[in-house]
């Protein structure tokens, strides 16, 4: 009897605790956030944003991120130096529910990583996101394409 009573009340206690801990606050674009993926060596969203682009046909949008070496290009006109790591994160776009006239990131389609080692050797890695579709992107020499994305400069 005691067990049944305890078992019966337990879900309510759990619900109460979860209710207290739930985030009553703000909207967060969780779908577009990059989850802790074992195959990703680091979270690209933690790096410095360097450029943005749109792919109208695929209805996707991308942000280029760089580590501290790569992001020096924000202030210097130079090639990517050895030690640079850049990520191109591409999302499917969705209409911004807060502003008719805008689109914002939806689910992640792809994450691409290009790194340049001490000898200047480049390497490319592709990570498939949940919104990736066959043939969506990845035409041509991705390494060269990513490294030639024009930096969003500001005064």
């Amino acid at each position, binding site marked *: 009897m005691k067990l049944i009573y305890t078992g019966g009340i337990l879900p309510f206690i759990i619900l109460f605790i979860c209710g207290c801990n739930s*985030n*009553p*606050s*703000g*909207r*967060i*674009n*969780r779908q*577009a*956030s*990059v*989850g*802790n993926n074992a195959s*990703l060596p*680091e*979270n690209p*969203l*933690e790096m*410095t*944003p360097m*450029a*943005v*682009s*749109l*792919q*109208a*046909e695929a209805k996707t*949008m991308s*942000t280029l*991120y760089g580590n501290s070496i790569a*992001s020096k290009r*924000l*202030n*210097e*006109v130079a090639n990517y130096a050895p030690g640079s790591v850049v990520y191109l994160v591409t999302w499917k*776009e969705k209409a*911004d529910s*807060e*502003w*008719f*006239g*805008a*689109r*914002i*990131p939806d689910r992640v389609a792809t994450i691409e990583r290009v790194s340049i080692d001490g000898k200047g050797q480049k390497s490319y890695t592709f990570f498939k996101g949940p919104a990736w579709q066959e043939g969506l992107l990845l035409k041509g020499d991705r390494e060269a*394409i990513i490294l030639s*994305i*024009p930096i*969003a*400069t*500001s*005064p």
Partner: protein
Amino acid sequence: MKFKFKIILCIACLVLLAQLIRPEELSTAKAQTAKTLTGVPKEVANVFETSCFDCHSAQTNLRWFDKITPANFLVASHIRDGRKALDFSQWDSLATPQRNAMLYFALNGILSGEMPLSSYTALHPSAKLKEKDIALLKNYFLNNLVSKPGDAVSRVGQPKVKEVKNSPNGVAYLPGYRNWKAISSTDRFDNGTIRIIFGNPIAVKAIHDGKTKPWPDGTVFAKTAWKQEKGKDGNVYAGQFVQVEFMIKDATRYAGTKGWGWARWKGENLLPYGKTVKFDSECISCHRPERNNDYVFTTPLDIKDFKK
């Protein structure tokens, strides 16, 4: 009975006498000739004229009950505030991008449920928009008012502005925002810009902790806009720098402006926007539909530290 009659008579006299006192703008207002929105199809212009023009243009069509004191003071304040936020009478003097911005601003006011004011539609039911009106506007906007990216221009670096003047409300420019995290990006097809919304470390932590309602003091956002430019590969990239806008949270210091310090620097010379100290009422007016989200439009990304 006699006493009650006297009271009623006194009230009636007071009401009649009150009619001599009228808001200046209404007593001097002259009927304006109906003007349509040049370049906009008649059926689309009609929707704006019916629902917005009474308070957002010089073409105010006052009903008899709008003219009775004291109601006319409320009407006058609506018109005053309305024209300050958006005035369709300026239409003919505006260039196409400003006209489009005005229309998008009006439509977003409607879609957010802010406009037309419910107190206004209660007495002016014809101003209430029907679903078919909204569908008509959306369809027109998506087919006619979508900005096209310009051709890519080759740029070599970007000269830095050494000294940036404060915003008229005293907010100082924060040059280090490019090292902050991107909490979102936006494809603004309404005005042909592409944006990164940068958040400082306090903002990023608040998002991760789920403590954004309200955002903590010290939060800063920098919304940076570039012109959309089409590359040879057909993709669109960030071209010429347009502006950077800051929202700086300090509930005490900025208590008079909804807890935020608002500022905008425009162009490659980073010229502060606004002519008067109170220019930020314009920012608040635009962000008002987001008052339940602490005046923030952006739905931010959660930036997790994978090492934790």
